[in-house]
């Protein structure tokens, strides 16, 4: 049984569908990368898993199970017991994601206390241990530090310490390195992967950096305009992409464009609320577009490699 299993997830804000029928499966102990441009629904679908979509957002799904528990059927109280303990999340902006009014040690301790993760007397020791695990030097002396006194990288380490404090089985990291310096990005990513393998937890990593995907992921899911357009094991995805959008993303990688005078780009923009095309959502930007793409939406097909395209690459069209 998969650790997290979601079928046909839909998240709507008014008449805008931010997430449109996404399937998502995370196996225990694996690293899943979710990639896509800004506004493709990556973050929103993860927030839906956490139960953090507030009014006026509406979440629905055919199946939304964590470890066999139906998340949508849980009472808010029961859901809160799960969230922060078994499923934890790290966000994009570490500095604004921490409360400026409380010391970081207190904020980590709050997680431990909320879920009674350790006996009260041991909370302080556990916080120090966590800070040590995420690579913060002299952890005991940082307990009283406020977020504004730490660097972005340090704050992200604090966020990670907070997220892993109750030994989650699934850690969701929403572009955890985007707001950081390039030199720090690698450290944070290594830390996440290291923690994942040591603790055997599953890691769902949201990113728009294909380099990160290549280095870390076991499996990749590509999102476009609220839909999942392709899903493959990492190596297969990089060697044999099926969806033209995936191929275009890969072609835009500077490493792959060696020799070309200009870096390839994908023309146009992700469709917004008012210009969603009929048929395949990618058709206005697709180089392989044909008549059927403009009239009917392709279903998700395939077994090992799943994709949403009538004329996939690597197959005779």
């Amino acid at each position, binding site marked *: 049984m998969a650790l997290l299993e979601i079928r046909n997830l839909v998240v709507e804000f008014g008449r805008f569908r931010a997430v449109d029928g996404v399937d998502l499966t995370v196996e225990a102990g694996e690293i899943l990368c979710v990639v896509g441009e800004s506004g493709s629904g990556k973050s929103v679908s993860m927030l839906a898993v956490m139960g953090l979509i507030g009014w006026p957002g509406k979440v629905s799904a055919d199946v939304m199970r964590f470890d066999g528990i139906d998340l949508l059927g849980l009472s808010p109280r029961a859901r809160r017991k799960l969230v922060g303990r078994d499923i934890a999340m790290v*966000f994009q902006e570490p500095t604004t994601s921490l409360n400026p009014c409380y010391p970081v040690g207190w904020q980590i301790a709050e997680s431990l206390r909320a879920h009674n993760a350790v006996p009260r007397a041991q909370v302080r020791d556990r916080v120090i241990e966590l800070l040590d695990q995420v690579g913060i030097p002299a952890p005991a002396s940082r307990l009283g530090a406020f977020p504004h006194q730490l660097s972005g990288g340090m704050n992200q380490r604090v966020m990670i310490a907070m997220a892993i404090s109750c030994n989650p089985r699934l850690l969701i990291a929403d572009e955890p390195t985007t707001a950081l310096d390039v030199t720090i990005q690698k450290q944070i990513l290594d830390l996440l992967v290291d923690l994942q393998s040591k603790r055997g937890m599953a890691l769902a990593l949201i990113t728009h950096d294909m380099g990160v995907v290549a280095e870390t992921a076991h499996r990749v899911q590509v999102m476009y305009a609220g839909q999942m357009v392709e899903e493959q094991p990492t190596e297969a995805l990089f060697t044999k992409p099926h969806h033209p959008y995936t191929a275009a993303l890969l072609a835009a990688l500077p490493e792959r464009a060696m020799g070309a005078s200009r870096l390839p780009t994908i023309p146009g923009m992700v469709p917004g609320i008012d210009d969603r095309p009929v048929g395949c959502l990618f058709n206005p930007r697709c180089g392989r577009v044909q008549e059927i793409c403009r009239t009917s939406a392709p279903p998700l097909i395939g077994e090992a490699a799943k994709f949403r395209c009538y004329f996939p690459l690597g197959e005779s069209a």
Partner: protein
Amino acid sequence: MLRFLLRRVTLIIPTFIGVTLASFLLIHAVPGDPIEVRVGEHGIAPERLAILRHEFGLDQPLWKQFADYEVQVASGHLGASTVTHQPVWDEFLTLFPATVELSVCALIFALVIGLPLGVIAAVKRGTAFDYGLMGVSVTGASMPIFWWGLMMILVFSVSLGWTPVAGRIGDAFFVEPWSGFMLIDSWFSDDDGAFASAVSHLILPTIVLGTIPLATIARMTRSAMLEVLGDDFIRTARAKGLSPLRVVIVHALRNALIPVVTVIGLQVGALLGGAILTETIFAWPGVGHWLIEAIQRRDYPVLQGGTLLIAVLVMAVNLGVDVTYGFLNPRIRK
């Protein structure tokens, strides 16, 4: 911190001069001086008038009068009332506790009701409760105090007879003014009903004086909360699996209080201004009542001294707010 305090204290001096100048010019712009007002309609011989005027220094040119007053204040004397001949400072000290008692009660009333209302309105934004509350608070903030006070007296004192009309305590009680605060003095008094009487006398003035700060605090709390509730760290708090109540109180309100405390500090000035009207309506023997009488009697020393002391108080409170601000907001703490 010390340098900050020093700078703020230095700023008090120009403010002093400004406040005394303003009150000096305003009261002299009003026709009549203390002597004429006391003489009234009966008239007085011109020679006698000149002698009295000379005694009070009123025959001097205006700039000289002002300069003399400034010198006198600088040497630590506020002068004596032209009516009672009591030192201004003594009169102020006797009446001040009544004003403080009323203002503190009004502020507590405004906080205890305004903060929760603002928080609830922010959490339930867009609902009928939110719109209703904000509508009522606009009405509250724009309510003329004298009208509001009279209406309250009319309904609760005259029609319903629930509360006394005026004063600090019932006529039947004599309470030794030990601290000057009626609630404290009556609590320790041997008379059984004294404390209850003092409380019942406080209710209406507290509500009337607290209405505007209440509305302002509720609105400010709401907008500060709305801003904070959209912040990233609120999402983090919810991602920890904390209860909604804990997220709102511990994480959101703590941050929202920073701007609200500033507003509360500013309200203290408004509160003392409002106290002048409220004290007059409810015959509350405080500083406001005293100042109104001083205006009517052209009691220059009382008016100028009283205004000055209130200005000092407002400045002190604002300084206190700035210091509190540092405690609430770790980012400006060193």
